[in-house]
Structure formats: structure tokens, C-alpha cells
């Protein structure tokens, strides 16, 4: 009899808990969030509760609160309030979600997620900030950062960094964040203030086939010339394998994302003189474009100009390519996982650079920002701080399968390195230390699209790289002047 009642009690409690978690985004006011008392009562019958965390919280928190309580920050000043987070369906969300109860316990602020597919999210975000609705307190931010900033939609974070009740520099260790990530969070050089905090970073690396390298006695290329030679050897000596693959499809996140690595290594930059001289017709850009175009034409697959990142990845996974010349290090799990037919023989190295050029691979950070109209910007800042802090970041990377940290300490962490692979971690770390992300000026999506179209034309052989880049330069300048 008692056991029966216990079971019913347990089922009821589990049911309540399940309903609470299923409700997800729309979860309102009471229940699950803080105390978690009825969720805990089901198991509370038998075991004596863990009680390791501070104060009487019955739940096992993912990260001990003491990690945060050392900080000289008044975590509980907004107790009882609620923040809305607008996010895309993205690995960061799944990696941090299990730890969010820690934040809720720490601050007494309830977190409500609004997770949408990328395109829908962009539309929603645009509407939210441009109409002044201010529904999202925290939201994902990307290439449109300067457009949003110049429209006056973003809330600069500096006032919060200067507020001693909200921020403790000694605890947060901002210097642990990669320079390039901090730079991109400052609008890629276009802003003196923090536009948000970086949450994930990817950097470009080179991938190669170790088995083919052994077979043909090749050595990992450091320079573009060596790389071209390696690609040539494989292309000419293997019947079913092309020398290299690389993104050729147009789009501001496609072919130019790769080319931008090389043009900086050739000593050029986007906007020699903003906004009058795009720099796209300088020698550095033209040389970089010529090198990339001829590499793909000579040793790439047929139709390289239409390859997207997923084509690049799957061609390499199928074992039909000798290299990926330069692409996101996030390909690593895909290339070495069960989807890959060459999982055991993939090598990773730093992206090649010109013999007399500076190594500076492109990187991209997702960041989270808050808007001028958000109702709870200060609470939002606390969340952003907590989410990007060292303890949270370390936990996500050690316990929850993430591999995109913006903190150097994570990439140096031995436990993390042994989990993801020493070589991958070291190459990524060294690349990130010298990374040079794209500065997304406010019209980047617009002229970037046209610039990528021109590059695609060159890769497809419709015009020379020089013609394409000269045309791209005039288009970009025209867009700002007109």
C-alpha cells in the first residue's frame, strides 16, 4: 500500500516536472524554475538529496554556485524578474541549456528561450528591434552587427562593464577571451564599445588526407606554393580524387569567407579607405583571387563554383578530395565522425599562407547582444556575463560536448584537449591566436553578396580574377556612394 502511494506520488511529481520542461519557451512564472521543490520530491523519498551546492537547493546543479559566488557581483539584485532570449537552433544553445538552472538559482532571474530556425530568427529579430518592441532581452548577433549598431538598435555594454555591482574584472578575466573575438564584438573595428559578448568561434584550418600524404610522400604545406604542389600531386596521381575542394558558391558566408583569409595574408584588407576605397582591386586581393581561382580550376572538382560548405564537407567525407584548402575547424567532428568514410585518415593543419605573407586565418564569432529597447538589459548583461564566463565555458566544453570556446583557457585545458584530440586543439588554438575575422561594415551583406557573385564568375571561368575583383571594387564603392 505505501509503496503504491509512493509510486503514484512519484509519477505525479514526474508528470509535473515533464510538463514543466515540455512547456519550454512558454514557461511562465511559478513552478520548475527556481526551488524545483516538487520535481525533487519524487526522488527525495529515498536518497537523502545531494546537498553539495550551497544553500538548501535540492537539485543537483551542473556547476557549483561557489564558482560564481566568489565574484564581486550582486547576482541577486534582480531576483524575481525574467529575461527572454532569442536564439537560432545552434549547438551553443543545446550546450548551455542544461546549465541554465545554475544561472536561475544564482540570480533568481528566470530564463525564457525563444529558439527559431536561422532565417525565421533573423526576420523576428529585425522586427523586434526595428519596431522597438524590445521583446528579446538577449539575442544572437552576426554579420548585421554594424547595421544594427548604426541604426541605434543595439545597447552598448560598456556602461554595464563600468557598473561595479554588475561586473568584476578579476573574476571574469576578459583577457582570456581571444583578441580576435573581442575585436569582432567591438563591431570589427567599427565601434569603440562592446556590441555584445562572443559565445562561439570558428576559425579556418586546412584539412588533408594523411593516407594520401604517406602514399605520395607529401609534407603538410605551410605556404600557398607548397599547398598547390600537394594538391597537384594528388590530383594527377589519384584517379578518383581531386586535389582540393573549397567553397565556390556565392553568398557573403560562402566563397568570400574563404577568400578573405587569403587576401589578408597577401597583405590587403577589406576597405583600404572606408567607405571610398574598397581595396578589392588592390594587388593583394587580385593575387589572392587569382591563386584561389586557379587552384579550384586546376585541382578542384568540376563545377567548383557551385560548391557550398556542405558540398565541400561531403566530398571530403566521401574520400573524393585530397584537401580542404581552408574552412571552418568545426568540420573536424564531421570529418572524423561516423559519417565520414575517411574518418581515420584526416589530418588538420593551419591554413596555408603566401611564403612572404602573414598567417591570419579568417574566424567568425557568434555573439549575444541586447537591444536599446529591451526591457531587462541589465539582467540580460548578467546572463551574458554568466554564459561567457570561464566556469560556464569550461563546463560546456568538458561536460557537454562543445568545441567552440572563445576562451583560450579552454583550449589549453588538458582534459578538453584529450577529449577533442591534441592536434585539433593545438591547431585551433594557434590559429585563433592569430585570427583576423571579417569586419562586417553596415552594408556588408549587400556588397559582400555582389563581391561573392563576381568571385563565383571567376571560379566558373566566365571572367578573369582581375576583372572580377575590379568589378567587385566598383560595385562595393558604388553601393556606399549611391
Amino acid at each position, binding site marked *: 500500500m505505501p509503496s503504491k502511494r509512493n509510486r503514484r506520488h512519484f509519477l505525479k511529481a514526474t508528470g509535473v516536472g515533464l510538463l514543466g520542461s515540455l512547456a519550454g519557451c512558454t514557461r511562465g512564472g511559478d513552478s520548475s524554475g527556481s526551488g524545483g521543490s516538487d520535481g525533487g520530491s519524487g526522488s527525495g523519498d529515498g536518497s537523502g538529496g545531494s546537498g553539495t551546492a550551497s544553500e538548501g537547493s535540492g537539485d543537483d546543479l551542473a556547476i557549483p554556485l561557489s564558482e560564481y559566488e566568489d565574484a564581486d557581483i550582486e547576482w541577486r539584485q534582480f531576483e524575481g524578474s525574467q529575461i527572454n532570449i532569442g536564439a537560432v537552433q545552434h549547438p551553443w544553445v543545446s550546450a548551455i541549456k542544461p546549465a541554465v538552472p545554475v544561472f536561475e538559482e544564482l540570480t533568481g532571474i528566470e530564463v525564457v528561450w525563444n529558439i527559431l530556425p536561422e532565417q525565421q530568427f533573423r526576420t523576428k529579430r529585425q522586427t523586434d528591434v526595428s519596431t522597438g518592441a524590445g521583446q528579446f532581452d538577449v539575442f544572437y548577433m552576426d554579420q548585421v552587427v554594424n547595421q544594427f549598431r548604426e541604426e541605434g538598435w543595439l545597447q552598448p555594454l560598456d556602461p554595464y562593464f563600468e557598473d561595479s555591482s554588475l561586473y568584476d574584472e578579476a573574476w571574469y578575466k576578459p583577457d582570456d577571451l581571444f583578441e580576435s573575438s573581442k575585436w569582432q564584438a567591438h563591431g570589427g573595428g567599427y565601434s569603440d564599445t562592446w556590441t555584445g559578448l562572443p559565445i562561439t568561434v570558428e576559425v579556418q584550418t586546412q584539412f588533408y588526407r594523411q593516407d594520401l600524404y604517406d602514399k605520395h610522400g607529401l609534407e603538410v604545406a605551410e605556404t600557398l606554393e607548397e599547398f598547390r604542389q600537394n594538391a597537384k600531386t594528388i590530383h594527377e596521381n589519384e584517379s578518383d580524387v581531386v586535389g582540393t575542394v573549397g567553397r565556390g*558558391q556565392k553568398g557573403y558566408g560562402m566563397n568570400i569567407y574563404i577568400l578573405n583569409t587569403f587576401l589578408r595574408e597577401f597583405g590587403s584588407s577589406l576597405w583600404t579607405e572606408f567607405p571610398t576605397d574598397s581595396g578589392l582591386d588592390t594587388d593583394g586581393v587580385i593575387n589572392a583571387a587569382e591563386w584561389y581561382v586557379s587552384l579550384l580550376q586546376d585541382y578542384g572538382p568540376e563545377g567548383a563554383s557551385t560548391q557550398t560548405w556542405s558540398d565541400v564537407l561531403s566530398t571530403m567525407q566521401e574520400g573524393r578530395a585530397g584537401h580542404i584548402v581552408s574552412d571552418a575547424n568545426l568540420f573536424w567532428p564531421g570529418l572524423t565522425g561516423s559519417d565520414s568514410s575517411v574518418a581515420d585518415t584526416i589530418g588538420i593543419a593551419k591554413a596555408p599562407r603566401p611564403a612572404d605573407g602573414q598567417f591570419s586565418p579568417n574566424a567568425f564569432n557568434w555573439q549575444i547582444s541586447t537591444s536599446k529597447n529591451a526591457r531587462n538589459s541589465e539582467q540580460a548583461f548578467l546572463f551574458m556575463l554568466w554564459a561567457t564566463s570561464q566556469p560556464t565555458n569550461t563546463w560546456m566544453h568538458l561536460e557537454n560536448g562543445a568545441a567552440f570556446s572563445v576562451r583560450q583557457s579552454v583550449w589549453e585545458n588538458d582534459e578538453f584537449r584529450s577529449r577533442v584530440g591534441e592536434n585539433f586543439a593545438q591547431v585551433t588554438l594557434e590559429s585563433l591566436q592569430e585570427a583576423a575575422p571579417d569586419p562586417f561594415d553596415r552594408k556588408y551583406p549587400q556588397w559582400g553578396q555582389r563581391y561573392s557573385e563576381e568571385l563565383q564568375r571567376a571560379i566558373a571561368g566566365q571572367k578573369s580574377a582581375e576583372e572580377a575583383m575590379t568589378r567587385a571594387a566598383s560595385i562595393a564603392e558604388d553601393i556606399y556612394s549611391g
Partner: protein
Amino acid sequence: MSTPTQTESTSQPTSARLRELWNDYLPYWFMAPMVLVMVMITFFPGAYDLYLALIEEPTLNVFAAEFAGLSNFETAFTRGGALHSFVVTITVVVSALLLESLLGFLLAALVAGVDSGRTKSFYRVLFILPMAVAPVSMATIGRIMLNSEIGIVPYVINTATPFAAPAFLSDIPLLTVILLDTWNWTPFMFIIFYAGLSSVPDTLVEAARVDGAPLWRRYVHVIIPYMKPVVFVATLIRLIDLFRTFGVVYGLTQGGPGTATQLVSINIYEQMFINNQITVAAAIAIVYLVLVVALCNVIIAKVGFEGVWD
């Protein structure tokens, strides 16, 4: 006593007037709900699009908007590449329409000529299948099948024929787009033509045969003229639909390489969602709308519904 009389005397003329109003304009009242719906779903968006095409910066406050004259149209045709995308669209529409009509008719004629009922329905189902595939999934599958390294189509061409497979999406993108659309939509023409063919009376064809008309004459002089309404309607519907093509082409090439397959619909999409130039997108949309409506009206006037339905 007098109060009710008074009320009656004032209310009667009002209701009589109302009834008169109702009776006099009876047809309009019946049409009103439909007109309202049309205004909301057709006229309003069109007018709003025109408004967007004529202002400097999009704003919800109509009175605060700055009139831009025709500058958005100018931008559309200079920097926006509208002319090029019109040429691409017309090429695709004309070639795909011709191919689909011819193939659809050929298949319909072949299937109609099959005697066994079971074989007939087998072919009917087989030929209709491609139409059931959603454009975006077709584009995605198409990309994989046409991929020069891992795709089945280049593989088959390279191994089973003496020819080398072209890079479909970069060497012959326009042709690839046209062929894929043909594959997708020939079934539509097939169904309608098949129904049309089935409706041609056997006696008519038989009479022509007895008179000694060879097969092609029977088609050209008897069957096709009899099917004219069906051919006209099918072609018109497909024509209008082809002008709206977006998903297959965007999924397959995103309008590239460069702008080689940039249909007007893709151009509008890119102006709007990538370049964030709503006003230019609206300008192209207006021009496109006017052209397509004008073209369809010319065709209807030339061929004429009256003649068709006789």
C-alpha cells in the same frame, strides 16, 4: 396614442428608403463581400508594393515617406540587374514551356495509344510521379545527383557513354535549370493532354482514318484542333506558373554562377532579403507584374476564350 404613430411615421420612410437602396443596387451588394476580399488580398498588396516602389526609405508612416520618383526603377535596371534577370526568365519560360508541352503531348499520345488498361494506368502513375516532388527537395536531391564528384548523373555519363560529363551547375546552368523544371512539370501537361486526348471522339478519328489520313494528319488536322481549349488552358496555366518559378532554381543554383540563372523572382528575393533594398525589390516586382499581366492578356485576346469554349 400619438407616440407610436409618430415613431412609425418616421421609421417607415427610412426602412423604405433602405429597402429601395438594397433593391436598386442588389447586384453590387451581392458582390460586396467578394470585392472586399479582392481588395484586401489583391489590390491592397499591389498598391502597397507600388507605394514602396515610389519612396526613398520604407516607413510605416505614409505621410513621413519621401517621394523618390522613378529612382528605384532606375536603380533596379542599372545596379539591380533587372534587365538581365528578365532575359533569363524569358529564356527559361519559353524553353521550358515548349519542352514541357511537346513532351507532355508525346507522352499523353503514347499512353493513350496503349491498349491494355493495366499497362495504361501503370504508365499514368509513373509519369505523374515527378510532379509530386516538392521543388526544394528536388533541388536538394538535384544538387547531390549532379555533383561532379559524388553525383550519380555525371558518374553514369562518364562510365556508360563516351562523353565526359559537363559540370552541370557551372558550365550549363541555364540548360540544367530548364531540364530540371521540364522533368518536374511535364507530368502536369501530360495529365491535362491525356484527359484532352481521351475526350476526342473515336468516331472522328476513325472517320479521318477511313478517309485515308495518315497518323500525323489525324493529329494535326483532327485531334489537336479538337483539343484546342485544353491545349490553351494548360499552356496558359503553365506559363503563369513558370513566371513564378523560384524554389527549384534557388535551391539548385541560387541564381548563379554569378547571375547566370538569376530569375526575376530570385532577383526580387535577393534585393529584399540579402541587400535589404525593399524599395528596389518592390520596383522590380511592379514591372514584372505589369509585364506578366499584359502578356497573359495579349495571349487571351489573341487566342480568345470565346473561340476556345465553342
